[in-house]
């Protein structure tokens, strides 16, 4: 059982990141109730493992736990749709531009952007959520998602490319 000083440190260090934790969980499991369960579970796990926190970025640390908890949740409850082996390689032609104009992005409906993001696989979605919505640095994403820092940029490049293509299709369907 953690002693009192651990509890105080834990609260000061990690509770300021509850919004970040919930935001990530919510985007990953795409449901308010499930996201709350995931975050609560993640904080309990974090409390158990708090002694393993050796300084560093507390937000990245708690997000790593949230992420793992969310993936476990998805696998258990929904038979995760994410591939067992996530392919890290950038494929030929994959980064060709989507032919989506900046102007179209600016005029796009918010719901459309949300849907396009929700359609990405979790690995792609989380990297966009961490970088563009939560504002994490590449280093923090690398820590949270447990990938080498060099992988972060290529994964982001692929994720944003897919998001642009998906958004373009949605815009085309609409008009």
């Amino acid at each position, binding site marked *: 059982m953690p002693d009192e000083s651990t*509890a105080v440190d834990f*609260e000061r260090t990690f509770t300021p990141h509850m919004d970040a934790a919930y935001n990530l969980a919510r985007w990953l499991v795409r449901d308010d109730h499930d996201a709350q369960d995931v975050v609560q579970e993640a904080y309990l796990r974090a409390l158990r493992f708090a002694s393993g926190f050796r300084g560093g970025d507390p937000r990245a640390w708690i997000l790593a736990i949230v992420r793992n908890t969310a993936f476990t949740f998805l696998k258990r409850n929904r038979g995760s749709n994410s591939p067992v082996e996530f392919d890290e390689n950038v494929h030929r032609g994959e980064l060709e*531009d989507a032919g989506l104009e900046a102007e179209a992005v600016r005029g796009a409906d*918010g719901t459309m*952007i*949300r849907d396009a993001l929700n359609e990405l696989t979790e690995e792609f979605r989380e990297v966009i959520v961490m970088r563009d919505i939560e504002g994490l*640095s590449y280093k923090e994403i690398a820590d949270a998602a447990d990938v080498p820092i060099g992988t972060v940029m290529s994964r982001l*490049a692929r994720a944003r490319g897919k998001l642009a293509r998906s958004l373009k299709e949605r815009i085309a369907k609409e008009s």
Partner: protein
Amino acid sequence: MNCDDARILLHGHLDGELDLVRDLEVERHIEECPRCASEFATLRAMRTRLKDEAFHFEAPQELKDKIRRALPAAPNRSVGYPSRRSGFVPRAARFAVPLAIGAMLTLFIVPRAFGPSGNDLVAREVVSSHVRSLMGSHLMDVASTDQHTVKPWFNGKLDFSPPVTDFKNDGFPLVGGRLDYINDRPVAALVYQHAKHVINVFMWPSDRDTTSVERIEPEQGYNVEQMTVAGMNCWIVSDLNQTELKTFAQMIRAHG
């Protein structure tokens, strides 16, 4: 640089994550290549859209309460850091009433606890200045990530020379500086960034020569750190969370 390389590096460029040399290469490529320029514009537009608050889910209050309740009980939990304003008043109130000398205590305690002290007034000023700097276009007079550009810029504009350090490698890049007016005097305002948060650091000479740190209560939702370092009054304001702002304050102190 060819387009294949640029296609990935555009993202590092957009996110400010490339080293200077690479960054300039990408910039040059964008100038020469209309296709990559258009792609970059699209990426930037997407990022701008995603930054909108509407895409950021905030944790429901009931969840926050549930998590806090699940933590083992600890002293000072709800109070946070002890402070004059939040710590002293309830304690005083608890004793004053049963002792029936409330009136007498009130005379002494209330002005101290509720009347704004000098620091409270300065805290209000720096927060207002921080908010103003974000609302208007006047965040910076000198926009530069180079401490050797920012520091000399203050020469001749102030009667002191503020210490200027870039903490880019620690995740807090310097983005510029400006002149501001706090506590009835011109002061140096240094602007730093951390993720999407802007941090204002206000500095002016102190008449105290000791290094001291004082905890200031959050003001209008902004976190404030105050310290005296290297003979300078130093006030740090941001919407950044308290933990990270504290870390940043420690960096400044270590370089003071």
